[in-house]
């Protein structure tokens, strides 16, 4: 895009600056729209699972429901509890929201369509997603209230537990791809199985960790069945209890942007990202961005499916799954994958 602005008569630095700003807006604004629609579609899905109708009043098929909710929240009064830590109370939702948007900078939407194609893309995503916990923890502490604080404690422990196994899973993928660059990982999946199927997930050695990554990403985004940070039956609404109005809306937007990011990561790391599922020329007629969005939506359907059907884990079960099952298995898988790659001379 830089060259496009250079053709308009700008010098390189100004063109780069304008192109970057334009790129950020081109990602962030459609993302907000996608979040609004994804909340709507998820409510429709849950309704279908529960044999209800779901939102069907505002607009055709209720498609404008999220926008009506947004407007309602926007017009509400912002309530700041007098016992809260005012500054941190207001910063917390902003942190959640900003961090959820930042990670999208390195996601390739199609071949070469990426805001920042950096060498350490995967590490960047890991770093940014590890920041996400601060929004929750700060919100829980700054509310100066009992249930939000419990929620913050749970969130901190939960995120750290599952980041460990996510780290090992990413190492397996990086070992196979030989690069931390996300576009490089996607390109390495081209024709991965017999030169035909474009996905790591069909590799028998990588399929188990693909499943583990899907489960871990549900835990990392604190989605059902791991939504202990906002368990309604125990903690009112967890860290969001004291929030109202736009601060509350920012938490929601941030949370769903994170869920979409995790779906995108699943699609990129194991299901071939923007590549068509099979290496067959007519499939390349469909642009890569369509394949990518289709994969994200498929992943999101699985997330909604799980949320609608699986009951919530107990806290000790959550910790057991993270530390006693996923950590040893993913550690063993790093051995297995690196041993296999050494044995077959993958990089020789």
């Amino acid at each position, binding site marked *: 895009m830089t060259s496009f602005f250079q053709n308009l008569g700008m010098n390189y*630095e100004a063109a780069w600056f304008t192109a970057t700003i334009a790129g950020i807006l081109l990602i962030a604004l459609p993302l907000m729209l996608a979040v609004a629609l994804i909340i709507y579609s998820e409510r429709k899905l849950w309704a279908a699972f529960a044999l209800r109708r779901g939102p069907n009043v505002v607009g055709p098929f209720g498609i404008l429901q999220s926008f009506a909710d947004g407007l309602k929240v926007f017009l509400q009064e912002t309530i700041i509890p007098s016992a809260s830590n005012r500054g941190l109370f207001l910063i917390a939702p902003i942190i959640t929201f900003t961090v959820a948007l930042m990670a999208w900078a390195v996601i390739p939407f199609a071949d070469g369509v990426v805001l920042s194609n950096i060498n350490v893309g995967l*590490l960047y995503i890991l770093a940014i997603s590890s*920041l996400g*916990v*601060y929004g929750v923890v700060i919100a829980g*502490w700054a509310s100066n209230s009992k249930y939000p604080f419990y929620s913050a404690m749970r969130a901190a422990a939960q995120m*750290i537990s599952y980041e460990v196994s996510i780290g090992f899973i990413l190492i397996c993928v990086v070992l196979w791809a030989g690069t931390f660059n996300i576009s490089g990982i996607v390109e390495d999946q081209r024709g991965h199985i017999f030169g035909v199927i474009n996905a790591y997930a069909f590799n028998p050695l990588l399929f188990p960790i693909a499943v583990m990554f899907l489960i871990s990403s549900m835990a990392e985004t604190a989605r059902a069945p791991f939504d202990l940070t906002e368990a309604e039956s125990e903690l009112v609404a967890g860290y969001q209890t004291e929030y109202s109005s736009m601060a509350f809306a920012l938490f929601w937007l941030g949370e769903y942007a994170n869920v979409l990011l995790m779906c995108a990561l699943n699609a990129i790391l194991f299901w071939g990202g923007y590549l068509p599922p099979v290496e067959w020329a007519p499939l390349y007629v469909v642009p890569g961005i369509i394949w990518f969005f289709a994969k994200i939506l498929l992943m999101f359907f699985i997330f909604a499916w799980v949320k609608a059907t699986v009951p919530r884990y107990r806290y000790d079960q959550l910790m057991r799954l993270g530390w006693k099952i996923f950590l040893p298995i993913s550690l063993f898988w790093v051995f297995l994958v690196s041993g296999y790659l050494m044995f077959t001379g993958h990089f020789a």
Partner: protein
Amino acid sequence: MIQLISFYLFASIVIAAAAMVIFARNPVHSVLWLIVAFFNAAGLMVLIGAEFIAMLLVIVYVGAVAVLFLFVVMMLDIDFAELRAGFVKNVPLGILLAVVLVAELVLGIGAYQAGAVKLGTPDVGVATASAAVPNIEAIGGLLYSKYVFLFETAGLILLVAMVGAIVLTHRRSHGTRGQNISSQVQRRPEDATRNVNQPIGQGIEL
């Protein structure tokens, strides 16, 4: 131009945040300022082309160490009056520490200007920053070839420290009953419940 602006931006925020770590009255605020300092230090690393180190700084320190800091500090019940009461008593110790640190700083800078010290390891090469070779490959190539022995020793020391920490703190508690997950999973409805059609007016044998 943009490098210069970013350098001064990151550097001044690091210093200001580091100062706020000390000046903030609330320890939770101190930890949060520390996180700001870490984050901007990572920005400085990116500026000198060490993107791998920058990401590691954020993942390890911001993502893990600082979360645990925050976890502990948030749970402390802090009495601010008591904190301030101890100030006068600890001033001499504080001044002593400051003097020692300043002396070390002066010594260090003096020694650096006098010329680099040759350490035990032979000068076999350094990881050079270049756009062609990614950071990770440069560091990995050096770490797993020239310094593989030192690297693995460091790993072993960390492993021993980890095992040691567990051995020292782990106590098998008596009298508590843990969860037996497999028996919970294997339990079936007919093991725990029964349907009875009880006649009216009679008690039930449990």
